[in-house]
């Protein structure tokens, strides 16, 4: 096999970016199939109500309409689904169906489906449907939803509590009792939503003659949906093909089950024609998952010299009227309470989680599930402690992080850390940002009335998830990935792999990894992803598994093929395969480097002249490999971020001047792609810290459900993001890679909140709520309040 890692670690360009730049992307949104029909939905205008009348007759005769469906026609086609995971004991959620039958649960809940020749005609016909609702009292608050007699978010619930859990070490009460100092706060995080560039898109196409259902689906998890469509619609899974071609952003939003996608599948099963649904932006706001509304009360106990003793956290997180399927909406809160204090040597901890129902759009996993909440709460408390004890914010972190030589270790919430690098990361960051210089500038500018703030945030990220995430809870979500690697008859390489590409560069790094195993260039490796018929089954893209698990799968598949090639070459050359290596597209003598046989020659002989090989030689130039992590349950990574901001204390406006990240994702496969993952992640963390929030009124109506009113972060407001690396490979795999996709998002908000509060410190003002809007900053400053 190849003995020279020539491409892993190199800044190869993402080759599919050229195709996208040339306008040759292939998105489901662009797909046109013969006889394709278009779907539009009539949605509930009320957050909670009972359907008293639904008359679709006028819509049936509207121009271009092929079919109009209500719950009576569609729901019968599909088993209902109920969210739950075995390891979340006591969790409840009501069963869901494609269309609302009797009760509408949120403003936007689909009630009827129109299928027509064009989307415009389908929308025209929706206007002819008569829907009458009796309004029920919507559940929209937080504090009152668990009170006795509170209205319930859905019929069949006994209370608005979806799930409650508590983690507790024995010494918590004692730690707080003996603490020299306790800092505390009530922290609030606004609901927000992913806003992918390409909205959710599906074209479902059933062919009755072959019994084949093909679903072109802009998703990050095609195999999960293959399983869902097969089971919910009663089809054998080999007759269900899910194709996820180019996908314009997922961020965790495109792995949940949505009513509209299920409706498109049901409609093609009835109509035997391709049915297309592409969410428009307004529909995205009322049907894509929302995320991360949390209300956290937290305390931190410290001894006299600023050593953290314990944290005590109560997290309430409302999710919608039911938990999302198939992963549940509980994972977000579960990770939030388990990641609290994760970077620190903290002996004791209590965390209580309450997941609450409301009549709003379902909320569930979104990039960096739970991380930003845990990081922001922990890091805010650490800064409050630093201020109280008059310790520098960098210094208090350096004193408290788990030392680099203390691994392996286990957090008080039960997470097992193999090897992290907080101390090294903090030192590198301090150098990169010229911390002392920044503090000097800050003091000088403060005298001139310019208020800058420096914010730090250490973090831990969960990556490389094994079956502990979902599999143990009974969910049919693959913890393993698979690859088929083959040498073509011409001596080139093809790799079909289950991890998927949404712009992260998955295909590029797989080509680098496979190339190194076979002694070829990455441009000689074609990588295929995103089609359940042509790639092996696997987890695909979620929870930062692509590089760590998918990459290891590709590596092992590549090595298996390298061994096979050496065996075939050895048979041809009458040489011991162990004396051969693969370099520069050829089989060489491992000791001397002398070329013995090109890969093209191996391909030619094995394909066209197999009879010339000695009897018993295996000429299979395709090998398959599956891989699941078997060591630590998760591969944790770590890092630290810093933000420099300037706050205009008269207007409450925040300028992001600069942002730094030091990150340790283990083995770096491609530094360009790692940095872009981090930068994108940072921006996705800055959005909800400063701009993004789904604002609801007390009737459960979304007040800002368009891109005119819902502010996503845009280039003009974003700072330069400087990145440094520490590399601590995991020893669980040969490759040593961990994930990096969520690190930026995990701590960006915490860093910027600490920076804003640092800027405001001369005024005695402190923000504990995101997004930090000008109105909230001015309110904290007691300015402009009338």
């Amino acid at each position, binding site marked *: 096999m190849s003995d020279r890692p020539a491409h892993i670690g190199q800044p190869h360009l993402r080759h599919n970016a050229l195709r996208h730049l040339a306008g040759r992307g292939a998105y489901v949104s662009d797909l046109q199939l013969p006889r394709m029909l278009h779907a539009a939905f009539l949605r509930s205008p009320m957050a909670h109500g009972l359907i008293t009348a639904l008359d679709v007759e006028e819509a049936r005769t509207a121009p271009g309409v092929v079919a109009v469906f209500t719950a009576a026609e569609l729901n019968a086609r599909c088993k209902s689904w109920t969210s739950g995971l075995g390891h979340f004991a006591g969790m409840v959620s009501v069963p869901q169906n494609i269309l609302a039958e009797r009760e509408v649960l949120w403003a936007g809940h689909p009630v009827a489906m129109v299928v027509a020749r064009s989307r415009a005609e389908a929308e025209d016909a929706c*206007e002819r449907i008569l829907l009458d609702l009796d309004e029920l009292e919507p559940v929209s608050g937080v504090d009152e939803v668990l009170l006795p007699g509170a209205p319930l978010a859905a019929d069949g619930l006994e209370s608005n509590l979806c799930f409650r859990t508590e983690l507790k070490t024995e010494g918590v009460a004692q730690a707080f009792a003996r603490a020299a100092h306790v800092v505390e706060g009530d922290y609030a995080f606004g609901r927000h939503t992913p806003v992918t560039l390409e909205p959710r898109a599906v074209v479902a196409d059933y062919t009755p003659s072959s019994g084949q259902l093909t679903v072109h689906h802009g998703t990050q998890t095609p195999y999960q949906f293959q399983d869902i469509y097969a089971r919910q619609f009663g089809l054998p899974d080999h007759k269900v093909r899910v194709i996820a071609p180019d996908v314009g952003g997922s961020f965790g939003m495109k792995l949940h089950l949505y009513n509209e996608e299920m409706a498109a599948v049901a409609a093609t099963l009835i109509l035997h024609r391709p049915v297309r649904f592409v969410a428009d932006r307004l529909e995205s706001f009322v049907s894509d998952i929302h995320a991360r509304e949390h209300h956290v009360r937290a305390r931190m106990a410290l001894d006299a010299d600023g050593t953290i003793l314990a944290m005590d956290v109560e997290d309430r997180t409302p999710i919608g009227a039911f938990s999302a399927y198939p992963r549940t909406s509980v994972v977000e809160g579960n990770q939030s309470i388990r990641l609290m204090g994760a970077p620190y040597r903290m002996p004791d901890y209590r965390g209580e989680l309450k997941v609450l129902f409301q009549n709003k759009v379902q909320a569930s996993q979104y990039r960096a599930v739970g991380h930003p909440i845990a990081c922001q709460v922990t890091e805010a408390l650490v800064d409050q402690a630093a201020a109280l004890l008059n310790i520098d914010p960098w210094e208090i972190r350096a004193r408290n992080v788990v030392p680099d030589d203390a691994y392996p270790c286990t957090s008080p919430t039960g997470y097992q850390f193999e090897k992290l690098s907080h101390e090294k990361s903090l030192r590198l960051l301090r150098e990169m940002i010229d911390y002392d210089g920044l503090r000097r500038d800050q003091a000088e500018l403060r005298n001139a009335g310019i208020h800058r703030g420096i914010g730090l945030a250490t973090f831990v990220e969960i990556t490389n998830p094994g079956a502990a995430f979902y599999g143990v809870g009974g969910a049919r979500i693959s913890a393993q990935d698979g690859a088929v690697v083959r040498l073509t008859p011409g001596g080139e390489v093809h790799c079909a792999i289950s991890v998927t590409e949404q712009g992260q560069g998955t295909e590029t790094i797989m080509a680098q990894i496979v190339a190194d195993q076979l002694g070829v260039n990455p441009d000689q490796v074609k990588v295929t992803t995103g089609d359940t018929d042509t790639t092996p089954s696997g987890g695909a893209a979620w929870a930062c598994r692509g590089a760590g698990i998918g990459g290891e799968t590709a590596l092992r598949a590549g090595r298996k093929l390298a061994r096979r090639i050496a065996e075939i070459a050895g048979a041809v050359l009458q040489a011991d395969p162990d004396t051969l290596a693969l370099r520069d597209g050829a089989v060489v003598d491992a000791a001397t480097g002398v070329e013995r046989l090109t890969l093209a020659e191996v391909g030619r002989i094995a394909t066209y002249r197999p009879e010339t090989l000695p009897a018993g030689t295996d000429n299979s130039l395709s090998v398959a490999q599956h891989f699941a992590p078997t060591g630590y349950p998760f591969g944790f990574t770590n890092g630290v971020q810093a933000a420099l901001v300037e706050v205009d204390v008269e207007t409450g406006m925040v300028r992001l001047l600069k942002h730094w990240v030091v990150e340790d994702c283990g083995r770096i496969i491609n530094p360009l792609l790692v940095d872009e993952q981090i930068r994108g992640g940072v921006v996705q963390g800055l959005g909800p810290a400063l*701009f993004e929030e789904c604002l609801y009124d007390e009737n459960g109506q979304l007040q800002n459900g368009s891109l005119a009113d819902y*502010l996503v972060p845009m280039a003009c407001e974003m700072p330069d993001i400087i990145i440094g690396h520490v590399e601590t490979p995991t020893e669980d795999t040969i490759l040593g890679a961990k994930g990096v996709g969520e690190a930026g998002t995990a701590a960006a908000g915490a860093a910027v909140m600490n920076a804003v509060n640092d800027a405001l410190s001369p005024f005695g003002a402190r923000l504990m709520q995101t997004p930090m809007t000008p109105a909230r900053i001015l309110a904290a400053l007691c300015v402009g*309040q*009338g």
Partner: protein
Amino acid sequence: MKPPPFDYQLADSVSQALDLYARSEGDALWLAGGHSIVPSLALRLQAPSLLIDISRLPELMGITLTEEGLRIGALATHAQILSDPLVRTHAPLLSEAAAHVAHPAIRNRATFGGNLVLADPASEFPAVVRCLDAVFDIVGPEGARQVGVEDFFLDLFTTALEPGEILRSVLIPPAPASLRCGFDELARRHGDFAMVGAAVWLVVAEGVTTEARICFHSVGPTPMRATLVEEALRGRPLAADEINAAQAVLGNDLDPADDVTLPGATRLHLARVLLGRILHRLAGQTAMETAA
């Protein structure tokens, strides 16, 4: 987000456009840059039977300097307002404001006239033209008429334009000598509708403000003149104490309502801060040169 069905007619002349409108029996809308009407159709807020495309009417084009002032055709794009040398010289407040309006792609298509007749109270240009005392040149079935800006913006999205009338051009009167003017706004993201914005137009002779027009946007149902502030400035030196005094009376001019992201009191505070900043900037500036 697809519009309901409508017919489309391209008009070659104002008279043909008016004729098409008359035949539609009032069930038509004008289409120029399309940046307000197309979204409103996609959102199904409006459902006209006919769109009459007036985007190629020669009578609505051109930016020219006349004896009466600067005449800006209604079809001038925001990009032209931003970069046209005549506008930059004779109505610099407009060019300055245009830099805050949306983004280049939008500025290339959206029209100045379309923006004004929409009368969105959050929009910049209505406030600026009110500050500039513009005159609206309107043509309709009964012929042409001129409407002063003080009679043009009537209410939220409501102007003096009658159904079936077309805004042909806007006249900006010549700038007086010793004019100092400035525009600024506070927006959460560049190019967004602002939390508050202000256009300030002052004649300052020998350090004393002799004339003042100040107009805010995003603080009420129409572009809002701050007449008490203007009065407080008039006849006094443009200096720190006077600016403070002017800021103090702004609360008598404006009474912004609470909305979902910003309490009215906070918006008023922001207006006051913005006013102070612009006035201080103008106080430090010598009188602009005005072209002949």
